[in-house]
């Protein structure tokens, strides 16, 4: 029973990963591709780790699998957020943009969106 649940979770993870990879390849601009890549790296990855954790749920192995899941859930959205911030600061805009609420906002100083106004941002 546990083996069947594990295989089902792994197949579900494979399906989500495949759909996400197709989305990275097919979506029109960078920000929608961020959505697809997050589907791979959070949805598919966490489902696959749940399936792997069910294969041998004892002690140190379960702890290590949960550690990998927690580390990935913290670091991967952070990296995608930093990448999207960097892409916006380089002038990459969504396809079909009709109104930009960030048009007059100063972004991407040396200390980020919420950083200091002055300082050494030259």
């Amino acid at each position, binding site marked *: 029973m546990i083996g069947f649940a594990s295989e089902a979770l792994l197949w579900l993870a494979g399906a989500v990963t495949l759909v996400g990879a197709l989305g990275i390849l097919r979506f029109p601009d960078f920000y929608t591709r961020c959505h697809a890549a997050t589907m791979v790296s959070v949805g598919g990855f966490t489902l696959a780790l749940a399936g792997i954790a069910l294969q041998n749920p004892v002690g140190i*192995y379960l702890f290590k699998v949960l550690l*990998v899941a927690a580390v990935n859930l913290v670091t991967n959205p952070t*990296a995608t957020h*930093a990448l999207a911030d960097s892409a916006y600061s380089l002038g990459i805009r969504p396809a079909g943009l009709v109104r930009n609420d960030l048009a007059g906002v100063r972004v*991407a100083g040396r200390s980020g969106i919420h950083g200091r106004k002055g300082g050494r941002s030259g």
Partner: protein
Amino acid sequence: MIEYLFALSGLLTLAAIIRGPTFADRVLASGAFMNIAVITILIFAVRAGEWLCLDISVVIIFMSFVGTLAIARYARRKR
């Protein structure tokens, strides 16, 4: 059998790395490829009983994060 599904996803992600018009698309696709590689390593760890691979996957996840963050911080426009 399920390994082929992840292999196909990895190939699609490699195609996205080659095709991506801007650098940000390439970095995003390489992060996704790193995740698919870690999933494949973990499935191998389960199938073959090589539980040492769990430690390797922790290291790979951290390296992927540090690499993506370094490229993102390096490539942003300086004012």
